[in-house]
Each structure stands twice: as C-alpha cells, then as structure tokens.
C-alpha cells in the first residue's frame, strides 16, 4: 500500500503542478461565475468574452512559439529531410492509430 502511495505521489509531483493549479483555478472561477451571472444572456456574453480572450492568447502564444523557434531555426534546418519525416510521422501515425483503435472499440 505504501509502495503504491509513494509511486502515486512521485508521478503527481512529476506532473507540472502549476498547469494543474491554473486549470483547476480557472474552472472554479468559471463555476462561480456560472452560478453568479443571473441571466442567460449575461452568461452567454461573458462566455463569448472569455472565448475571445482565449483566442487572443492562443494567437499571442503561437507568435511567441515562432519567435522562440527562430532562435534555433538554422540548427533545425541543418537536419534536412529528417525534420520533415519526423513531422509527418509524429502527426500522421498517432492520428491514424487513434482512428483505428476507436473504430475497433466502438464497433465491438
């Protein structure tokens, strides 16, 4: 029992706590707002506002990722066709296997 508990704690500490805290804190704020905002219309307007804010942050983050990667782009490009192969493999294989396993599971 102690072994299982210590193993669990090790895994949980390995997980980035800041990410989990940010997600849970956000959900709690959302839940409180959901109960506080009395009218449906007001709730929808606020949901739309949060959606736009999240979208802006996504754009900002994608721009910053580009900026960060530009610092190592010559190094990445020097790897040649291996990079293209890695991109295609990492995108296609997990996607395809997800589809195959879902098909097998849901069909049964």
């Amino acid at each position, binding site marked *: 029992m102690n072994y299982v508990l210590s193993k669990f704690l090790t895994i949980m500490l390995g997980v980035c706590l800041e*990410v989990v805290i940010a997600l849970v804190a956000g959900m709690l704020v959302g839940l409180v707002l959901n109960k506080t905002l009395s009218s449906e219309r007001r709730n929808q307007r606020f949901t739309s506002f949060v959606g736009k804010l999240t979208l802006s942050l996504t754009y900002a983050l994608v721009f910053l990722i580009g900026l960060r990667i530009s610092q190592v782009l010559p190094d990445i490009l020097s790897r040649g066709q291996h990079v293209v192969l890695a991109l295609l493999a990492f995108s296609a294989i997990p996607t395809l296997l997800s589809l195959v396993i879902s098909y097998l599971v849901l069909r049964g």
Partner: protein
Amino acid sequence: MIEKFGASTLTLFFVAGLLTGLATDVGVSEEFLWVVLLCLIFGVGVSMGLEVDRIVSTSRKRVFQGLKLILATITGSLVGGVVTYFLLGEPALRYSLAISAGMGWYSFTGTYLAGIDPYLGFLGYLSNVLREVYTYVTYPLLGKKLRYSSISLGGATTMDTTLPVITSVGGPEAGVLAFVHGAFLTLLIPIIVPALT
C-alpha cells in the same frame, strides 16, 4: 467555446513570429512563454467552468461511448508515439510520447516542450497543428462511413476548432460526442504531457 479560426490564420501568426525572430534580435524567454501558457490554461478552465451545465448534460447522454472514444484516442496517440520512436530512433521515447500525447493541442504541447528543448517545441507544435489539418481534410470523407469513431482524429480540437466540421458532416449527435471528447481531453492533456517528460 466555438472558436472560428483555422489552421491558416494560426500558421500566419507562427510564420510572423519566425520572420520577426529572424529579421530582428528580439528573443523571448522561457519564463515569459510559461506565464502566457498558464494564462491560456486558466482561460480554458474558465470557459469549461462557464459551460459546465452543457458538458454535464451532454456527458450523461453518451457516457460509455464517450469514455470508450476518449480512451481509444489516448491509447492510439500513445501507441503512435511509441511506433514513431521505433521508426525514427529520436527524440527519446518519453519525448516522442509527449509529442504524440499533445493530441492536437499545439499551443500547450509546443510551449511546454519548447521549455525543455526548442527542437522538441518545434515538433510538438507543428505535428499537432498538422493533426488539426488532417481532421479538416479527412473528416468530411470518413465521418459518414466510420461515424463516431472518426471523431478521435481531431483529439482535443474536437471541442472547438474542428467541432463545426464534425457537426456539419456527422450531425448534432456527433457534435455532442465530439464536444465531450474534446473537453475531457483538454482536461487530461496538461496532466499527461508533463507526466511523460
């Protein structure tokens, strides 16, 4: 939380960042990227909290189907990471698993892995953007034939960016399942990816 932006607009922002970095000496620290990412995750949490009624009511309708679909998407993505690692031989197995465990959430996976190594961030970001692109292209072809199982193509994007495509091709039932599938994956990815690295 239907966000009507496509992969093309995001690619524009990504390329703009790349060009800005190449043309100027402007850099970005990992700490700053991390803070922006945490703000985004907080925003996603608020959106989910605001839509909790919708998530709960739709979950009740298709609990078992939704659970099976979520587990199949996670299993398929992780097995995909292992297969890719054995095909390419790099990066390390745990990073290969983390890249594939992004399941379409490119902003999170890209930023998180860029904090470890910018090359991993590059792979994590672009391979997950491509997953979204594949969903746009293949769902209209597969959605009618394979029905609900093809929802797993989109991974976490099925609750926002690819939801309109899924709903228009598969109908409202598929849309409901896709929303629940994407919402639960969005909750799980920030736990799975850091746990793997």
